[in-house]
């Protein structure tokens, strides 16, 4: 059972590299925000997985809940800030 969790963690870590491309090279600011949100939602599953591998899931589940709240607040605040800037230009064309 421990090996299954380990392989799941490896595949999940590889899948977290794919939205990193969108977060680094996204054409607009909001594309980067989508990439960061996708990485954050995978990190919640990753934290529970670390707790199951180390057999301390009762501690890591609170960390995962706090991280879920932090991810939500960060995305909400960033999107409220960027909608004030009118005419969000396409970075690739300028």
């Amino acid at each position, binding site marked *: 059972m421990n090996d299954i969790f380990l392989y799941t963690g490896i595949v*999940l870590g590889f899948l977290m590299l794919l939205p990193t491309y969108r977060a680094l090279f996204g054409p607009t600011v909001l594309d980067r925000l989508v990439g960061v949100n*996708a990485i954050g*939602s995978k990190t919640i*599953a990753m934290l*529970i997985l670390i707790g199951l591998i180390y057999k301390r899931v009762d501690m890591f589940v609170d960390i995962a809940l706090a991280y879920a709240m932090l991810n*939500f607040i960060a995305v909400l605040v960033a*999107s409220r800030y960027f*909608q004030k800037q*009118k005419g969000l230009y396409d970075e690739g064309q300028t």
Partner: protein
Amino acid sequence: MTVIITIMLIGGLIFFAGGSIGIIRFPDFYSRLHPAGKLDTAGLVITMSAFALYTIQPLSLSALITSAKIILIVVFVFITSPTAIHSIVDAGVRAGLKPWEKGE
């Protein structure tokens, strides 16, 4: 029970992979939000259900409380993830991003 948990983990990873590839491959900002909103939430629900099923196995009070906390994380993400994606869409519409059209 091990077989059920493994099947649920593989199903969740398939949803996660679909969401990640969709975020890279879709041509437009608004269409990129579709895999970001749906598939990540679905993958998280299935994966966390597998973790809760594994945690509850030697049945005791502390295991029951930990499993209930994992289910509460799922409920929280199920409410907040579409809210976050909708606020990003709102920011894009108000900033005046044009949707993608055929032939561009």
